[in-house]
């Protein structure tokens, strides 16, 4: 392991050098593309240069689209065969992301690479070419509760970066970058720090088994009328991994088309609809409970750690001001016999 210091210009040159081999993704600001007019959208995208890296604002959508795109063609078909498409660009990708999101992708790994016993080939081929460059995160954004979720730290990265004013520091964990980083920088001693306290704290339920009465407890009822099933909490979440499969065919040739998989979410209508019109979670409160349990209870039962990484995006984006973190606290209070208010 080694560390280097750079001026911003020097590091921009390292960045440009890396781009000769890798495509570099990171949070990027799209001016005027925000939900409201004259607001911006921050999302993960290929960065043309270091200047495009957005550090001041949390991305409203997570880097999960790099491994699990919102809409991905899984087959091309005609009447008699299905064929798996090649990845359009097969090169290696460096992604600049924060510890919570690195931990978030580790959650996705559990689902896509392990659950059910078979690896998902579409996820796997995108995941394999991904290299984590961790953006050091010393100060949390609004609504973050990564510390409570123990996802504030990680060592799952190849390079860690500190952006401080017009200085950049790098810690190199993977030898392959040594030459490139060493050339342009001065040896330093940087080792990343992590957020150790968030404004928002969450108390997780400690029960081994969720009491059955919590499933239709009245604490969920308030969400029946509050949640509008818009699905933003699911789409923004770095760990939500649900999808649906749809076929579409080309208007010009009705024999050919694509099978695609698109994000779905347990808050959206139709997620649990069955033949005959039966739907398992019609009420939004039930959906809230389903999501909450998955994030902080079910997943842990299956994989040994919680799904939610406390990135706080769901709280950032909910148009109805439903706070998931507050919901977890309420759940824990209720479990301890306290008030569900």
């Amino acid at each position, binding site marked *: 392991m080694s560390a280097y210091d750079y001026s911003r210009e020097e590091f921009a040159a390292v960045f440009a050098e890396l781009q000769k081999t890798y495509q570099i993704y990171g949070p990027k600001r799209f001016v005027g593309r925000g939900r409201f007019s004259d607001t911006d959208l921050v999302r993960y995208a290929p960065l043309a240069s270091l200047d495009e890296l957005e550090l001041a604002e949390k991305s409203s959508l997570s880097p999960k689209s790099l491994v699990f795109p919102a809409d991905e063609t899984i087959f091309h078909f*005609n009447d008699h065969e299905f064929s798996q498409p090649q990845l359009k660009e097969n090169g290696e990708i460096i992604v600049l992301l924060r510890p919570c999101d690195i931990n978030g992708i580790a959650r996705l790994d559990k689902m896509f690479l392990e659950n059910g016993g078979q690896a998902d080939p579409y996820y796997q081929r995108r995941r394999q070419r991904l290299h984590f460059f961790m953006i050091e995160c010393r100060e949390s954004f609004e609504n973050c509760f990564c510390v409570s979720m123990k996802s504030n730290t990680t060592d799952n990265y190849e390079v860690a970066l500190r952006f401080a004013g017009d200085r950049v520091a790098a810690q190199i964990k993977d030898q392959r970058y040594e030459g490139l980083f060493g050339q342009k920088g001065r040896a330093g001693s940087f080792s990343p720090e992590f957020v150790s306290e968030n404004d928002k704290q969450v108390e997780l339920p400690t029960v081994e088994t969720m009491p059955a009465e919590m499933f239709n407890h009245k604490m969920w009822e308030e969400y029946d009328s509050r949640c509008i099933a818009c699905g933003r909490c699911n789409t923004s979440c770095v760990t939500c991994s649900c999808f649906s499969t749809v076929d579409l065919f080309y208007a010009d040739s009705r024999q050919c088309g694509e099978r695609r998989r698109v994000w779905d979410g347990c808050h959206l209508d139709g997620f649990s609809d069955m033949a005959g019109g039966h739907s398992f*979670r019609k009420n939004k409160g039930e959906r809230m409970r*389903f999501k909450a349990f998955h994030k902080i209870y079910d997943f842990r039962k299956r994989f040994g750690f919680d799904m939610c990484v406390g990135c706080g995006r769901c709280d950032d984006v909910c148009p109805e001001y439903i706070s998931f973190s507050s919901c977890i606290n309420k759940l824990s209070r209720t479990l301890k016999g306290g008030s569900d208010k």
Partner: protein
Amino acid sequence: MSGNPYQPFPVKITKIVSESDVEFTMTVDASLDMVPGQFFQISLPKIGEAPISISNYGKNWLQFTIRAVGRLTGAIQSLRVGENLFIRGPYGHGFPVEKLANSNLIIVAGGSGAAPVRPLVSQIVAGTLPVKSLKLITGFKSKESILFTEDIQSWKQKCDMTLTIDKPQEGWNGDTGLVTEHIRRLKLDLPDDYQVIVVGPPVMMKFATAEFRLLGVPVDNVWVSFERLMSCGLGKCGHCKIDSTYICVDGPVMNLSHASTLID
């Protein structure tokens, strides 16, 4: 194949039998290893994919019994012999055959629940899966909705079978009433000795299993099969998740001790 578990492969339709107005049994060419109770993801390009239970199989053939309720199942209904169907699978946990072998077995099937238990019953009556005894209770809405009439004729000869429809109906001389009423009438001297399988609509399974519990059958001896919306069949898409259980990989057949704890 490519090693891609999502890859559907074509199978030729060799026979189609109409079971009722909306249900039909389709036989396809396929030689695969499978267990009764498992399912396949069936698809047609342009239309989509859906999970369908194995309704019977042999060395190089496989059957599905499908209820045309929507886009895909409707489109499959219009296919003809000689055309291709696309499938991938088999998926999930089937019936616990080793536990059932040489047991006193009771199978209760309601409506389309008859499809997944059919291969099991066929193997038992054919003697390839030996059991000590078999009681079979099948219930349907009306006489028009009875599935597998031919099989039922032969099963009647070979096992203790009750065929009931929900309400009395003109031209019906057989049993009537919900399956639960027939379960209630069972006399089980040593309830611990029985293995029980209940497959049908959720409400029916709930009440039927409760009856068996009242009869004293231990929860560990009762098996049910769940249906949920499924997109992948591989434990990835999340649609079939209940609690920390993925029905597609942990089920669809589950022991009641597990199934009864699941709350959607």
